[in-house]
C-alpha cells in the first residue's frame, strides 16, 4: 500500500482525474442528455415514430393514394382489401405480383345497398410511385405521383376500407394526420408561451402577482376539462371557416394545457432562484436578464422540452374527443377526431369496424409514442443527478 492519500495530493500539478479517454469531462449538457436518452430504447423508437408521423403529415398528398374528398357512391362501406406480394402464376406456381384483392359485389335490392367482400382471386395490380390524381405539394409543386396505388388508374383500391360516401379511409387518415399532429404541436407552442410567461413571472417575482396567477391556475385546473372544452368549443359560430375553427380549437385546447407547464416553470424558477450558482452569478455582477438567460433558462430547457413532449398527447386526445363529439373540427376538415365521428354508434362500428379501428390505432400510436418519448426525455433531462 503506498502512502497515497487522495487524488488531491497529486492534483498539484498535474491533475490526475478525468484522464485521456474520458470525453464525458468536456461533454456539454446536450451531449450528456443524448447519451442518456439513447440508452432508452423505447424512447428512441418512439422518436422515430413521431418523426415518421410528422413526415406523413407533411407529405400527405404524395403518400395518400387519393384525395380525401374523392367520393364514390358506388363503393360505400367497402371493407379493407388485403395486400399481397405473390399471386398464382400462369404455370401453376407462385410469382411475385404486388397486388390487392378485388371485391365481389352483392346488391341487396330490398335495403337498396351493396355489400362487398374481398375476393383473393381478383387481382388488382399495385405499384409504387404510380400516377394518379393531380395535387399541389406544399401548395407550390404540381404533381400526380402517389407512393402507392393501382397501376391501372381505372381500378380503385381501399387498403383500409371506405366510408359512408365511398371515400378512401387510408387517404383520409393520412390527411387527418396532418391536422391532428399539427394541432398537438401548435397547441403545445401556445401552451408553452403562456406557461413560460405566467410561470416565469409567477416564479421570478413572487408576491401578490404569484398569488393571483396561482389562484387562476387553481381555478382552471380544478374545472373538469372535457365539459369546459365543450362549453368553449360550442361557442364557435357555425358560420366560421375551417381555418378559423382550426385555430380556435387549438387555442381552446392549449388554453387549458398551459397550467401544468406554468406550474413546472414556476417551481423550477423558485428552486433555481435560490441555487448557489445563481447567487454566484448575481455576485459576478450579472443583471437580471443575464441571470435568466445564461443561468436559469439553460437549466430548465431540457425539463421544459420533456414537459412539452408530455403535453402533446393531451392535446391530441382533446382535439380527437371534441371533434368526435361534434363541437371541435367539422367536415370538410379531416382530422382523426372527425374520422371517428363516423364511428359514433354501435350500428356504424359493427357494420364497418375499420372506421373505428384505423383512426383509433393512429391516435393510440401517436399518444403512446409521445408519452414514451417524453418519459425518455424527462429521465435524460438532468444528466447531473447521479
Amino acid at each position, binding site marked *: *500500500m*503506498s*502512502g497515497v*492519500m*487522495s*487524488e*488531491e*495530493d497529486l*492534483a*498539484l*500539478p*498535474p*491533475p490526475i*482525474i*478525468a484522464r485521456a479517454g*474520458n470525453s*464525458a*469531462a*468536456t*461533454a*456539454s*449538457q446536450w451531449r450528456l442528455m443524448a447519451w442518456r436518452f439513447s440508452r432508452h430504447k423505447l424512447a428512441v423508437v418512439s422518436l422515430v415514430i413521431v418523426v415518421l408521423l410528422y413526415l406523413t403529415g407533411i407529405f400527405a398528398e404524395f403518400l395518400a393514394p387519393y384525395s380525401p374528398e374523392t367520393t364514390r357512391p358506388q363503393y360505400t362501406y367497402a371493407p379493407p382489401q388485403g395486400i399481397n406480394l405473390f399471386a398464382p402464376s400462369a404455370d401453376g406456381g407462385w410469382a411475385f405480383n404486388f397486388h390487392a384483392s378485388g371485391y365481389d359485389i352483392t346488391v341487396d335490392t330490398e335495403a337498396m345497398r351493396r355489400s362487398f367482400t374481398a375476393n383473393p382471386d381478383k387481382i388488382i395490380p399495385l405499384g409504387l410511385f404510380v400516377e394518379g390524381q393531380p395535387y399541389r405539394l406544399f401548395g407550390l409543386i404540381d404533381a400526380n405521383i402517389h407512393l402507392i396505388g393501382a397501376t391501372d388508374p381505372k381500378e380503385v383500391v381501399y387498403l383500409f376500407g371506405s366510408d359512408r360516401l365511398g371515400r378512401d379511409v387510408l387517404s383520409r387518415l393520412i390527411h387527418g394526420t396532418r391536422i391532428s399532429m399539427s394541432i398537438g404541436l401548435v397547441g403545445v407552442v401556445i401552451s408553452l408561451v403562456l406557461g413560460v410567461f405566467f410561470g416565469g413571472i409567477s416564479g421570478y417575482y413572487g408576491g*401578490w402577482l404569484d*398569488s393571483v396567477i*396561482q389562484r387562476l391556475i387553481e381555478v382552471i385546473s380544478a374545472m373538469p376539462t372535457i365539459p369546459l372544452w365543450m362549453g368553449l368549443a360550442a361557442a364557435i359560430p357555425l358560420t366560421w371557416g375551417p381555418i378559423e375553427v382550426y385555430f380556435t380549437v387549438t387555442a381552446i385546447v392549449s388554453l387549458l394545457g398551459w397550467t401544468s407547464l406554468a406550474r413546472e416553470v414556476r417551481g423550477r424558477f423558485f428552486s433555481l432562484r435560490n*441555487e*448557489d*450558482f445563481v*447567487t*454566484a*452569478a*448575481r*455576485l*459576478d*455582477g*450579472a*443583471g437580471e436578464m*443575464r441571470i435568466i438567460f*445564461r*443561468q436559469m433558462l*439553460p*437549466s430548465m430547457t431540457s425539463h421544459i422540452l420533456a414537459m412539452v413532449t408530455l403535453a402533446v398527447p393531451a392535446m391530441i386526445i382533446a382535439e380527437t374527443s371534441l371533434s368526435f363529439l361534434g363541437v371541435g373540427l367539422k367536415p370538410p376538415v379531416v382530422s382523426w377526431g372527425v374520422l371517428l365521428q363516423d364511428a359514433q354508434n354501435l350500428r356504424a362500428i359493427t357494420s364497418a369496424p375499420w372506421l373505428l379501428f384505423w383512426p383509433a390505432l393512429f391516435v393510440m400510436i401517436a399518444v403512446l409514442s409521445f408519452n414514451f418519448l417524453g418519459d425518455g426525455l424527462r429521465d435524460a433531462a438532468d444528466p*447531473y443527478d447521479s
Partner: protein
Amino acid sequence: MTAEPDIVLSVRDLTVDFTQRQGSFRAVDGVSFDLRAGRTLGIVGESGSGKSVTARALMQLVDPPGRITSGSIRLGEIDIAQLPRRGEAIRAIRGADISMIFQEPMSSLSPVHTIGAQVMEVLELHLKLDRKAARARTIELLGQVEIPNPEQAIDRYAYEFSGGMRQRAMIAMALACNPRVLIADEPTTALDVTTQAEVLDLIGRIQRERGMAMLLITHDMGVVAETVDDVAVMYRGQVVEAGPVDQVFHGATHPYTQRLLAATLKLEQPAARPALSVVSSPILSLRNLGKTYQLGIGAFGGKAKGTLRAVDAVSLELAAGETLGIVGESGSGKTTLGRLILRTVEPTDGEVVYSPPGAAPVVVRTLDKAGLRNLYSEIRFIFQDPFASLNPRMTVRQIVGEPLLINRRGSAAEINARVSQLLELVGLDAEMMDRYPHAFSGGQRQRIGIARALALDPKVLIADEPTSALDVSIRSQILDLLIELRQRLGLSFIFISHDIGVIRYFCDRVAVMRRGRVVEVGDAQTICTSPSHPYTQALISAVPYPDPRRPRMQQRARYTETSLGVATLR
C-alpha cells in the same frame, strides 16, 4: 478459533461487493475485528472508505446490489454472514441482539408515527410485551436517555423534537431490548458540537452501565480520541491500522494513519504566518446589522404568526489584511450575516460600510444596481457547497470567465489568458478549463470557486464554510491555499465556519455568534484557549480533541440559558 469470553461479535475477512453493470466494486475488502463486552471499537475513515458499509453488513443491512461475498460475522454460535438477508433468523437478531443508531436522526425516524409508537414496536416485536407494558417501558427508556417529560414526549412526532432529542429517541429505540452490541454510524455528525458532546456522553454512560459492546463509526479523529477504547483505521475498504487508541494516535505505523493524524492535528493550532504588521483602518464595518424574518405569511398576505430575529444588531470591523472568523452553531445566524453584507439577503436594519484604501467609503445599503455591481468586484464570495455553486451546464472557462466577461475586463483572448492564470494560481491545470464541473472532485471544484472569486482582483473575500463539505485531508489543503493567496494578494477575509479548528488555523480574530447575536469577539488564539463568555467556554470545551491523552470534552463547561451573559462587543 478459541473464543475469548468477552468477545461478543467477531468479524473475520469480511468482504462486501457491489455488482453493477459496469463491473464489480469492492466496498469492504477482507476486514477483521472483534467487539468485546464493555468496550468500544471506533472505525475511522474518510468518505468512501467503506466504514458505513462495514457497519451495515454486521446486521445484513447492505442493500442490493451490495452483497457480503466472503468472511464471517460470528455472534456466539451464529454466523451472520451466512444468514439470508430477509430471513427470520437475522430478523430475530436485529434490534434484539444488535441494534444500530444512524447518522441523520430526522430522516431515520418516521415523520408520521409518534416517537413512542416507533419505540414500542421493537418491544412488542422482540419482547412480546403488550401495549400497556410496552408503553410503560418506553416512557422509562425515554427517561433513561434524558428526554424531558417522557410521559408527554412519547406521543410527540420527530419533527417536534430538536436534533439532539431525536438522536436520544433513536438511542432509546436501539436500547429497548437491551442488545449485546450497539452500532453507532456517525451518530453525531449531523449535530452541533455542544449537542454532540452530550449525546456522546449519554452513549458512553449507557454503554458502560450495561456492559454493551459498541462499534462507533466516525470520520472525526477527535470523537475517536475522546470516546473509544480501540481504533481501526479504514482506507479504501481495508483496515490499514488497528490497535488500542493510544497506540494508534501515538505510534501510528501506516502512512495513511500518519497523514490523517497530521492533517487533523494541523488544524489544532494556528497556521504559521506573519502577524499583522500594522493594525490598519477597517476596510469593512458592520454597524448594528440585523435581519428579521416574518414567519408563516398566508397566501392572502395575512398577518405573520411571529418574527424570527436571524441576525440581531451585529457590529463588527474587518481591518485591511485581516482575517475575521465568524463561528457559531446551526441557527446562530452566521450564514445569514455573510449574505447580509453583500445584500444577497436584504438587511432589515443597520449599515455595512466598505472603505477601500484611498477611496471614499461606500455605504452598501444606499447603493443602486450599478454601485452594487462595482462593490461585487471588490468583495467576493466563496460558497460552502462546491457542487451547487458551480453551474453544471457551463465549462470551467465560462464559469471563471463569467465575472470578467460581465465586467468587460478585456478581449476574449485576454479573458482566456486570465482564466488560465487564475486556474494555475489555485493549483489547477489550465488545460482543464474546457471541462465541465462534473469532471472534478469536491476539492478541485472548491478551487474553481476560489478562482472565480479571485477573477476580479478583489480586496475582501467572504468565505461561507468553504471547507465543511470536504474531507479532513483536503480541508487543510484548501485552507493552505487560501493562506497562501491571502499573503500573495493582500486579501482581507471574513471566514464563516462552525468548526473551531478551522477558525483557529486560519483566522486572526474571531466573533462568536449565538442566536443572531455576537457574544464575544477577540483574538482567535485567546478565544480558542481561554474564552471569557460562558457560551464560548462551553462551545470550545465541547470540541473533541484528537489526542486520547488530553481529553477535553469530558471536563467541558456546560452552558444553559440562565447563565446568559452580556455579549462582549469590541
